[in-house]
């Protein structure tokens, strides 16, 4: 399996925040979701990928090529939509499409306009008259119009209503119908990622917590809810993101079988429930864990 994105030991320091030894890979032809809470470092990683900011150490490869030495070549093959869209508000959507599209040598104007049509964007409308959702769709049309092999999206669905979010997700799924195309998108809306991502990478406080097939994560990790009579530190230490309550405590683990064994060993007969987790649970508990440290 070839990797469209390969990051190794990425370190980047800001005054109050830093990326610490970030490493993960995104296989070609699939959709990878990049999740983490606000401030975890998602945008910073993406900006390093896009060679928009420098970094101190580590190696980033896109399409097998170094992200800095081949920055221009790589950019031709990438469609990027950032967190905020910067358009000339007084210009029309159509003008914006052509203006920004032409920066790409492989720009297909007819295709770009057909995307506007498909997104229900009136090319003669001024950008200032477009809603946030339509601006994102305009940015997507511009990003897709040069038929990129890799779509990099930084929080594309934040602040958008469920209807538009669904449209965008469907579009992403369509993009990877071509096995040569890959999607990498960051979001803190875990339900979006849960639906269509093939792979998920979780980042917290500048560190990669895990990176795996989405299905594996959902099946490996379980949430345990246990009665308080069994609240020993040893047992609690085996769970991540422990929440203690009046009527029981809970936490998650990727080793459910060994947890159950320990539980039965220490408190035979103790009541507990084991549940599947959502990516939301995962994010919240991981964040809780790192906050307690």
């Amino acid at each position, binding site marked *: 399996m070839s990797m469209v994105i390969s990051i190794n030991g990425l370190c980047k320091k800001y005054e109050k925040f830093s990326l610490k030894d970030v490493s993960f890979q995104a296989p070609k032809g*699939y*959709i990878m979701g990049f999740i983490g809470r606000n401030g975890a470092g998602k945008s910073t990683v993406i900006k390093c990928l896009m060679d928009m900011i420098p970094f101190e150490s580590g190696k980033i490869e896109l399409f097998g090529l170094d992200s800095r030495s081949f920055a221009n070549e790589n950019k031709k093959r990438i469609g990027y939509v950032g967190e905020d869209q910067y358009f000339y508000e007084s210009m029309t959507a159509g003008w914006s499409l052509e203006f920004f599209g032409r920066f790409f040598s492989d720009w297909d104007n007819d295709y770009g306009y057909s995307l506007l049509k498909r997104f229900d964007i009136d090319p003669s409308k001024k950008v200032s008259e477009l809603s946030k959702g339509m601006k994102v769709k305009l940015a997507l049309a511009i990003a897709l119009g040069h038929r990129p092999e890799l779509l990099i999206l930084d929080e594309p669905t934040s602040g958008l209503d469920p209807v538009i979010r669904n449209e965008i*997700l*469907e579009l992403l*799924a*369509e993009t*990877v*119908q071509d*096995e040569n195309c890959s999607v990498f998108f960051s979001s803190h809306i875990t339900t979006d990622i849960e*639906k*269509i*991502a*093939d*792979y998920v990478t979780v980042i917290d406080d500048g560190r990669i917590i895990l990176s795996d*097939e*989405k*299905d594996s994560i*959902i*099946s490996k990790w379980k949430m345990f809810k246990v009665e308080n009579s069994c609240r020993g530190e040893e047992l609690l230490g085996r769970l991540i993101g422990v929440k203690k309550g009046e009527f029981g405590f809970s936490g998650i683990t990727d080793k459910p079988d060994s947890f159950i064994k320990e539980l039965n060993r220490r408190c035979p007969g103790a009541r507990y429930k084991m549940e*599947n987790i959502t990516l939301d649970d995962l994010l919240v508990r991981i964040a809780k864990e790192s906050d307690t440290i």
Partner: protein
Amino acid sequence: MFIALSNNDPTPLYEQIKKQITEQIINGELPPGYMLPSIRVLAKELGISVITVKKAYEDLEAGGYIVTNQGKGSFVAKAGAEFVRESRLKEIQQSFENGISLCRELGMDSEEIIKIFNDILDEFGP
């Protein structure tokens, strides 16, 4: 082919896909040679991960229900018909067992049972 996934079902998505396709192969709705949608198309239609569908297809192939030709697609295996036949035979066996045990409850012996069976069989014709 009809596939509908349920979020309320605790069974993993790929199991649901396997089950629904297997059922339709066994009841003959998807005959041998029927071409299944490509993994990516099905993933898009169902709004789920490509890898989930891939897993289902791989399991179906391991179970002998479908055959995948690289580049051509995935097809219901000829052995699919065998499964249909086998499962039908099981149904038949079960029906006979039910009928016979009901007869026994009425106190009938084998001769009487065979007579009833033959009478009914005659109604069906040769």
